């Protein structure tokens, strides 16, 4: 499976949750598949989906899912110790690990080689790290939501992108409707 196929499959699960979605094609895919006011789309700032999600989870009680990528986590690796040491049980970091920089032309990342993000998350002190294969994402995500225990999910899948339009929604509109959904 490629990321867009996973997102299509888990869209009904994501719909009821607060989602901070990674820059580039992941946000474009989620926006095209199932745009929701509970989705915060990153239009720039590679690497910060996990940090935004953690800040949001620490500030309020609703479940927050950060949809991140292997390349983006690699660019902000210092997020892992911060997550580990500031436990928010309403927080799920879901890393779609396709071993490539999808938005820039599928150049390989090091997670397709020797590097294990799950291993790095555990070494950072994250206590609940799960590795799942693409086809198992839905049940694993539902379990993580139900458990109400901070979870780092590393979802292994194939590299590749669906052709989706860019997001033209104004960033202030994205933020405004998201904040209303958060406080609703």
């Amino acid at each position, binding site marked *: 499976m490629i990321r867009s196929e996973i997102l299509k499959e888990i869209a009904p699960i994501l719909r009821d949750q607060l989602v*901070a979605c990674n820059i580039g094609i992941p946000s474009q895919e989620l926006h095209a598949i199932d745009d929701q006011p509970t989705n*915060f789309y*990153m*239009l*720039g*700032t590679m*690497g*910060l*989906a*996990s*940090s*935004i*999600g*953690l*800040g*949001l*989870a*620490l*500030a*309020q009680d609703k479940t927050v899912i950060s949809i991140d990528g292997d390349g983006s986590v690699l660019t*902000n690796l*210092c*997020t892992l*110790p*911060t997550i580990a040491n*500031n436990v928010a049980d309403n927080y799920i970091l879901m890393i779609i690990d396709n071993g490539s920089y999808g938005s820039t032309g599928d150049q390989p990342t090091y997670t397709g080689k020797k590097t294990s993000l799950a291993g790095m998350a555990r070494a950072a002190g994250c206590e609940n790290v799960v590795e799942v294969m693409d086809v198992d994402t839905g049940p694993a995500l539902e379990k993580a939501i139900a458990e109400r225990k901070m979870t780092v999910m590393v979802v292994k899948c194939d590299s590749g992108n669906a052709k989706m339009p860019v997001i033209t929604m104004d*960033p*202030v509109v*994205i*933020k405004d409707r*998201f*904040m209303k959904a*958060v*406080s609703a």
Partner: protein
Amino acid sequence: MDIDKKITDDLVANDISFVTTVPCKQLAGVIEEIDNRDDIFHIPSNKEDEGMGLCAGAWMGGKRPAIIMQNTAIGVTINTLATLIQYYRMPLPMLISYRGELREPVACQVEMAVHTKALLAQLNIPTYHFHHQKDVEELDMILKYTFMCNKPVAILTDANFWGGYGDQ
């Protein structure tokens, strides 16, 4: 006057309850004060752009955030300031240790100090420079201004403001 306590009191009085910090020797006292306050959640960051991501999330979650960092961080966070904090129009008070100014003992700090105000000006970030202790009296107004206009606002605090750097 206890500057560390005054700054922290102003943060609390302005309902700032989520503070992230990347340390600097000059900021050690205020970071300790913040860490000891029950009404502020203190989350140390490993890098300042990460900290701004945390602050953006906290803001959208209903908490007023602030970041405390060194001016070298301006070099680290320009992309984050432009494409996250400014693009989505979020307020962010930035209490910044202005290293490399008068009474600075470490020459390399001057290399970023000479760019600091120019970079902030290029980003159209409202910038205040605390040089004397009494300048802290404006902090309360600056914080109110920040959350009025929903912008990142820089408060540069130099060594003279902190009463000198170390043994200098």
